[in-house]
């Protein structure tokens, strides 16, 4: 049985100008020990979908899903008290901005102990020993002396590691890492990614990595789900995604990487992600897609089979050629 099952998850926000759909019919499945990366631009609903799993969205959000199950338990109908037993223990999350996610009024020792106090039956000395062990694990030098530090006394990289220590303190079965390394230097980033992968291998933890760094994705993930404007547009195993992207958006995104550039001019994607008021009636990517036809602009695209990366596209790419495309097709 899958650890996490999400079927047709939709999240809408009530705004002053009507409803805004941040996540649009996203389905995901995750087994124990999986590493899934969710990539997409800012505003593509990556974080919101995972916050919905955690139950951390504000009251303005309307969450609907055909199925939202964690380890056999339905997260849609779960009671708040039951949810609190899961969140922070079995499902934990590393948040994006370490500096603003830690409470500035409390020492990091206190904040780390809090999760252990709630979820484990360790006594005070046991908690202290566990915290020191955790801080050691995430590579903080001289952890004993750091317990009484406040977040502002630590650098961004240190705070991020404290966040990670907090997230892994109760040995979670599912860890959601929301841009865990964006604030960090490459050398520290390499250390953190190695640590997360080690935990995933040693403890069989499932890892969801939300990121926009394609390099990180290709080096850590097993499967990749690409999101665009709230929709999942493609999902493939990582090597196949980089070798043969099926959705034009994925292809354009990969081509725009400076690393893959052959010319001084990068192939860029014109325009920006559609906002609340300019969502096209057909394919959401059609205004920026160079392959878009009349059909794309007017009709919502179908979901392609798994062999074509579950691409949400009328003319999925196979080996760089758009199948069934009237103009530039194969």
């Amino acid at each position, binding site marked *: 049985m899958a650890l996490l099952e999400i079927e047709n998850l939709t999240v809408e926000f009530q705004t002053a100008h009507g409803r805004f759909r941040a996540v649009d019919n996203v389905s995901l499945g995750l087994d124990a020990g999986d590493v899934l990366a969710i990539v997409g*631009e*800012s505003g593509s609903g990556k974080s919101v979908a995972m916050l919905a799993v955690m139950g951390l969205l504000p009251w303005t959000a309307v969450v609907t899903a055909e199925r939202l199950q964690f380890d056999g338990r339905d997260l849609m109908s779960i009671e708040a008290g039951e949810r609190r037993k899961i969140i922070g223990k079995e499902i934990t999350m590393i948040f994006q901005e370490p500096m603003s996610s830690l409470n500035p009024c409390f020492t990091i020792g206190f904040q780390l102990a809090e999760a252990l106090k709630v979820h484990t039956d360790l006594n005070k000395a046991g908690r202290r020993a566990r915290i020191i062990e955790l801080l050691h694990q995430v*590579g903080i*030098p001289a952890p004993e002396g750091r317990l009484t530090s406040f977040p502002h006394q630590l*650098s*961004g*990289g*240190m705070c991020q590691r404290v966040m990670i220590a907090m997230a892994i303190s109760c040995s979670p079965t599912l860890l959601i890492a929301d841009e865990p390394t964006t604030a960090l*230097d*490459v*050398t*520290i*980033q*390499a*250390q953190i*990614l*190695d640590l997360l992968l080690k935990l995933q291998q040693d403890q069989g933890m499932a890892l969801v990595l939300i990121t*926009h*760094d*394609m*390099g*990180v*994705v*290709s*080096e*850590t993930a097993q499967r990749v789900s690409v999101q665009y404007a709230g929709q999942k547009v493609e999902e493939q195993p990582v*090597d196949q995604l*980089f070798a043969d992207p099926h959705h034009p958006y994925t292809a*354009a*995104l*990969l081509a*725009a*990487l*400076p*690393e*893959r*550039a052959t010319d*001084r*001019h*990068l*192939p*860029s*994607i*014109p325009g*920006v992600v559609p906002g609340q008021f300019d969502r096209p009636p057909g394919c959401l990517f059609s205004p920026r897609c160079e392959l878009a036809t009349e059909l794309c602009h007017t009709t919502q695209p179908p979901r392609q089979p798994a062999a074509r990366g579950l691409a949400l596209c009328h003319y999925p790419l196979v080996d760089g050629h758009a199948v069934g495309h009237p103009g530039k097709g194969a």
Partner: protein
Amino acid sequence: MGKIVLEAEALTRHYPISLGPFRQPAILKALDGASFTLRRRRTLAVVGESGCGKSTLARLVTMIEPPTSGSLRIQGTEIVGADRQALKNLRPKVQIVFQNPYGSLNPRQKVGAILEEPILVNRRVSAAERRDQAEAMMDSVGLRPEHYERYPHMFSGGQRQRIAIARALMLDPDILVLDEPVSALDVSIQAQVLNLLADIQEKHDLAYLFISHDLSVVRHIADDMMVMYLGKPVEQGSRDEIFSNPRHPYTRALLSATPSVDPAKRHERVVLKGELPSPINPPPGCAFEPRCPIAFDKCPRQTPRLQADGATMVACFAVTDPHEAGTRNIKGAA
């Protein structure tokens, strides 16, 4: 090779740090002996971790702060010890684009006012002419004329960075300092901005000082590179030479830590232990020694100087004195 527009020699910036009322202030060596030249149509990339002095370098080159020692010549004019008038004349020649376009634009100014302000302050030009210049500049960076009356919050990150670039170009500078200009942007937008920067460099004959920690971007845009560690340049040379044959162990660690999307380019990671030491109390000898995988007994005792090694300049004993490093195989250790 373009004309030299800026020459820096042993550029140094120290800050006194107060440790308390009755103690001697400590000296923070934010930048310690950087030498480089900037040429027209060339891009010098400065890479390194946070705290290595990249931004201090930007502050010195833009004349926001004077260097503690060393020499900095812009268009042949020495700015160390120069009087206010000379500095005032030189400042328009060097402009800067900051990392975060959400913080570097005044939210209460319209785009037009943002772009016209540099001219308003520095030149005597009529309002109509200012507007003409602003509109011409907006056109050349890909902003539409109707954007003139809009506020920064109405734009996306990529558009804001275009505004910031346009503002930097208003005084027709020779040198553009780019302080992590694309690191706050998404991949697809990043490509647009990098393309714009490449076009502008051609069009305006600009010299770029490109500060970044993203090596894939540096590899794309730079001509020359300077790798810094704790305020000191540790390796300096052409981009191709440094990427194809990195000599300093820190450069190698940086390159190997950068995740690559291409499985064929992937190599064994040199995972560095620990973090950047404090610049207030740097380790004796080579600053990189505590984290270095190939350090030997000379490293903690003496400070390596930047020396020519083949086509690049390196500050590492293991590279410049291989016989002293003994039998240790440097390539193998990396």
